[in-house]
C-alpha cells in the first residue's frame, strides 16, 4: 500500500467521523503507535455510541466497557467483534495511561479495526454490500532493519500467545461454549423449565416445595437489599421482597388453577365416554 492510500476509504460513505479516526490511526501506526491506539479507541467508542443510540434503550452507561457489554449481551455485537473492540479498548486505555504501544500491537489492532469496520457498515446501513479487500498493512516510512524486523516478529508472537491465553480464560468462564447457539439453547432450557413447572404443579415436589423456596428466597433477598452497601433501607427492602413473594405466590396459584381445570376437564371427558 502506498503512503497516500488507505484501507478505510469505504467507511466514508457510512460514517465520516469513524472514517476520519480510522485513517488517522492508520497514518500514525508506524510513527506514533500510542496515538494510533488513542484514535482506534476513539473510533470504537464512536461506533459503540452510534450502535447504542440506534439499537438500545437510552439509559445505557456511556462508559465504553459498559456500552460494549450491553451491546454484546443485547446480541447487537457478536462475540468476535466484541472481543476485538474490547482489545482495542484495553490497549487504548493502556496507551492513555502511559504504557507504550509496540508497533506490531498497534498494527494488529488496526487490522482488527478494519474487520470491525466492514461489519459496522453492514449493521448501520442494513442491506448494504461491503466487500472488504485484504487488509494492506501501511508501510513504514523507512525500510526496517533486520534486528527491528526480528523484534517485531517476537512481539507479534507474544501478542498471539497472550490472545490465545485470554481467549482460553474467557471461554472457560463464560456460561456457554463458543460452538453453542445461545439463542437455541436458551429457548430449549425455557421450554424444559416450563414443562418441569407444569409437572411440579401437578405432582408437587416431594421434599422442598416451591412455596417454601419462595419464602426462603424472599427473606434472603430482603437481607441482601437491607445491607448498607446496597442501600440499607429496611422498609424498602421488605416491601420489594414482599412484592416479589406475592408475584411468585400468584404464579403458583395460577399454575395450580390451570392444573385443577385440566384435571376437571379430563374427568369430565372420561365420564362422557
Amino acid at each position: 500500500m502506498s503512503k497516500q492510500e488507505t484501507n478505510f476509504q469505504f467507511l466514508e460513505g457510512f460514517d465520516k467521523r469513524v472514517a476520519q479516526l480510522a485513517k488517522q490511526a492508520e497514518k500514525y501506526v508506524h510513527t506514533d503507535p500510542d496515538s494510533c491506539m488513542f484514535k482506534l479507541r476513539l473510533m470504537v467508542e464512536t461506533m459503540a455510541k452510534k450502535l447504542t443510540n440506534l439499537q438500545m434503550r437510552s439509559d445505557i452507561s456511556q462508559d465504553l466497557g459498559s456500552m460494549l457489554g450491553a451491546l454484546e449481551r443485547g446480541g447487537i455485537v457478536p462475540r468476535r467483534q466484541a472481543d476485538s473492540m474490547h482489545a482495542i479498548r484495553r490497549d487504548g486505555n493502556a496507551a492513555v495511561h502511559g504504557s507504550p504501544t509496540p508497533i506490531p500491537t498497534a498494527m494488529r489492532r488496526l487490522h482488527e479495526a478494519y474487520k470491525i469496520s466492514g461489519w459496522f457498515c453492514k449493521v448501520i446501513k442494513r442491506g448494504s454490500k461491503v466487500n472488504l479487500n485484504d487488509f494492506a498493512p501501511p508501510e513504514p516510512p523507512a525500510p526496517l532493519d533486520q534486528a527491528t524486523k526480528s523484534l517485531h516478529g517476537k512481539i507479534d508472537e507474544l501478542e498471539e500467545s497472550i490472545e490465545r491465553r485470554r481467549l482460553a480464560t474467557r471461554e472457560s468462564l463464560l456460561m456457554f461454549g463458543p460452538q453453542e447457539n445461545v439463542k437455541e439453547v436458551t429457548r430449549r432450557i425455557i421450554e424444559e423449565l416450563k414443562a418441569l413447572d407444569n409437572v411440579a404443579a401437578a405432582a408437587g415436589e416431594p421434599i422442598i416445595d416451591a412455596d417454601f423456596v419462595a419464602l426462603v428466597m424472599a427473606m434472603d433477598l430482603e437481607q441482601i437489599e437491607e445491607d448498607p452497601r446496597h442501600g440499607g433501607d429496611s422498609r424498602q427492602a421488605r416491601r420489594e421482597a414482599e412484592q416479589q413473594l406475592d408475584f411468585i405466590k400468584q404464579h403458583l396459584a395460577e399454575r395450580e388453577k390451570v392444573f385443577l381445570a385440566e384435571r376437571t376437564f379430563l374427568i369430565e371427558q372420561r365420564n362422557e365416554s
Partner: protein
Amino acid sequence: MQESEQIQLATLWFLSARAMAVAGEEMAAVQEAATGLYAQAILGFEESVCRKAKDVEHIDNKTLIDCLSGVRQLPRELAEKILTGVMMISYADRKMKPLEVRWASMLASAIEVSPDDFQRCCVNARVIASMLRPHGAPA
C-alpha cells in the same frame, strides 16, 4: 478424580447454573461471570475442564432431567455446593422469578436436602452473592 469425571461434573454445574440464569429471564453479566468463577474457585475445576464441559459433545445432548438425575447421584457435600452456587446465581441479580423458584425447588428435591440444609445453602449463597456486587453495582 479422573479428567472425564471432572468434565462430567463441570457439565452438570454449567447445566444447573445456566438453567437458573435463563429462569431469571434477563441474563445479567454478573450471573455469567459468577458461573465461571464459582466453577474454578469453589468447585475447583481447571480452566481446560470448564471449556471441555461446554463442548457440544458433552453438553448438547443433556436435558434438565439428566441434570437433576446427575446431581442426585453426587456425594452430598458436592451436590450441596452445586445447589449453593445455583442459588448464588439466582441472588446475583437480586430478583426472584417463578421459574427460578421452581428450578431451585426441583434441584433441592433431587438432592434430597432437608429444609434446614436448604436454608443453610441459601445463606451461603447470599453471602457470596453480596460479595459479587458489594456496592450495588449494576447487574
